[in-house]
């Protein structure tokens, strides 16, 4: 009799302990970013933002008393490795939501997310093709439209008639080409492309030089941007070069240009580090404290991405119910760092301001 009682108490306490363990189990979210590879500049910034957001969420009590745990995977800047990463996150870690960026990566992840009913939040990819209606994919990032539109209106105002395009051959570059075709009034008389891993652009620049467009727009990763500007100087191309912040606003771009970046014009997210509103000041100072550098748009987008995801999760009884999170996101409205966050039926965030910047004395300044 005694033995049965003791046995019963042990089983009962194990069950209770098990329940308690279940309760305290963290809510897991996946984050697939470029820790290595050609996009590592972008990945580094995003990870900083996500980290900071996770800290804040947990400091504010987590998700209904449970801790939020972010599981990072390296996309290696290739869709192939990102696909392996998301499979692991879904099968092994059991996440119901994933953050990511890079156009080609999110394009490859999107069908997998939808098939498995996993929320996919893009925090940096610009390709228009990612936009799809009523499904599990969302975006808190500037798209090519914002940048291309801004530069195009500048070109149109200057009455530039002919344009040359030099773009990396992936979803990001092709997205840019498509968008410029839409918004630029003149003719794109030549478009040349190059591989994601290319480090030599002389042939393409040569062909562009021959066609002699009034201006040239390029889209690439930061290191390539620097090399493009360096080689165009060596080859003697005189037209003004334009691009977007994803290619340009990085130290690695300035380094690989070796001084040839002077004067390039690019569209950037409007991100004023001197903003005085409380929530921004709080974010920026925490960022500076943790990373010893000023915050930047890509980090802020990633931060916002996790914050809005957490907000939707909190509204759900079961944070693992991805259908509930999905509905929550389509109906949500919160104040993010970049701006207010609401999603249209395609899951794209609405309204973002852009400005034009340039490189002067090897620093990024607003273009006047």
């Amino acid at each position, binding site marked *: 009799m005694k033995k049965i009682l003791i046995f019963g108490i042990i089983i009962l306490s194990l069950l209770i302990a098990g329940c308690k363990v279940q309760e305290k189990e963290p809510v897991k979210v996946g984050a697939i970013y470029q*820790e*290595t590879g050609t996009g590592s500049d972008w990945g580094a910034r995003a990870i900083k933002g996500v980290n900071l957001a996770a800290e804040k969420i947990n400091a504010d009590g987590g998700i209904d008393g449970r801790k939020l745990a972010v599981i990072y*995977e*390296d996309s*290696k800047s*290739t*869709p*192939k490795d990102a*696909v*392996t990463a998301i*499979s*692991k996150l879904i*099968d*092994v*870690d*059991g996440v119901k939501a994933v953050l990511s960026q890079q156009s*080609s990566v999110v*394009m*490859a992840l*999107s*069908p*997998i997310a939808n098939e498995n009913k996993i929320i996919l939040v893009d925090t940096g990819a610009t390709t228009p093709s990612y936009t799809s209606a009523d499904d599990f994919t969302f975006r808190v990032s500037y798209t090519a439209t914002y940048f291309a539109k801004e530069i195009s209106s500048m070109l149109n105002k200057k009455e530039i008639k002919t344009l040359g395009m030099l773009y990396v*051959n*992936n*979803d990001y570059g*092709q997205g840019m080409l498509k968008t410029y075709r839409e918004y630029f009034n003149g003719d794109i008389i030549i478009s040349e492309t190059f*591989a*994601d891993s290319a480090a030599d652009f002389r042939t393409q620049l040569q062909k562009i030089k021959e066609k002699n467009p009034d201006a040239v727009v390029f889209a690439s990763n930061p290191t390539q941007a620097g090399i493009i500007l360096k080689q165009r100087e060596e080859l003697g191309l005189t037209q003004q070069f334009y691009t977007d912040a994803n290619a340009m606003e990085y130290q690695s771009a300035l380094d690989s240009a070796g001084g040839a970046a002077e004067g390039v014009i690019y569209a950037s997210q409007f991100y004023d580090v001197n903003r005085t509103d409380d929530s921004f000041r709080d974010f920026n100072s925490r960022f500076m404290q943790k990373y010893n550098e000023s915050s930047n748009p890509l980090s802020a987008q990633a931060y916002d991405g996790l914050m809005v995801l957490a907000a939707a999760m909190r509204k759900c009884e079961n944070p693992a119910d991805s259908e509930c999170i999905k509905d929550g996101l389509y109906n949500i409205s919160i104040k993010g760092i970049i701006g207010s966050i609401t999603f249209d039926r395609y899951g794209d965030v609405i309204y973002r301001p852009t400005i034009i910047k340039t490189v002067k004395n090897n620093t990024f300044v607003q273009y006047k």
Partner: protein
Amino acid sequence: MIEAYLIHLLILIGIYVILAVSLNLALGYTGLLNLGHIAFFGVGAYTSALLTKSLGVPFPVAFIAAGLFAGLFGFILILATKKLKGDYLALATLGFSFVVYSLLLNWTSLTKGPLGIPGIQKPSFFGLAISSNVSFLIFVAIVCVVSCFIIYKIIKSPFGRLLEASRDDEVGLKVLGKNTFKLKAKAMIVSAFFAGIAGSLFAHYISFIDPSSFYITDLILILTIVIAGGIASFKGSIVSTFIIILIPEGLRFFEMPSSILGPARQIIYALILLGILMLRPKGLFGRVDLE
């Protein structure tokens, strides 16, 4: 959740066993120094992916078509390299890998080039979808066992003995009046066929393919498996696949960042290859030397 990861590994092993055994048929038993095997894998993968995605062809048809189309490429290769021997044959087949890779990369209107093909569906037979990983593993296991059985039967048959004779003493065989080219062609086509269906399995499992999966690094992996297992050793190829796929996985327990994991894995493959070549060129179970 470790089981999920184990299932993933077993699926990969199943696919690579088919690749290894089919390569061994050509390289080990027939003596064809084919460094172009990865091209057949790629052709199969793209064929299957494009047929199911763009043309809505049912999976079983695409699956077989992948093998047949890869077989066609095998025929082209053996025809082109008819007169070559030794390391020149090896290099020409390597060149063939490069040319196919280039085609996959540049024929963008067909293959979408570096952007790759995302969203490849899981296989479905007459309405029955293979949706979970467990069912996919069962499917791969069945295909693998059937493929191995067929290739084993070929090896043990009189035809198989002729292939080995052609490897060991081609001139002698010709003297006896055998058309050695026909023999080699058949072996190459069969070898390519199975590489093609392995490609189809791969594409429908990973759901995303791009040309980078069908280049040098993966070729080295298959070569290492076959050489380590032993030339002309059926058993060796199978055992070797298990060992070589599983060893780098042990690295995961050391909690290394992925910037180290990636190159570390390649270094292990290279060391295994060099080690086998230098210390035990017959491989684990091999009976024959590389000529």
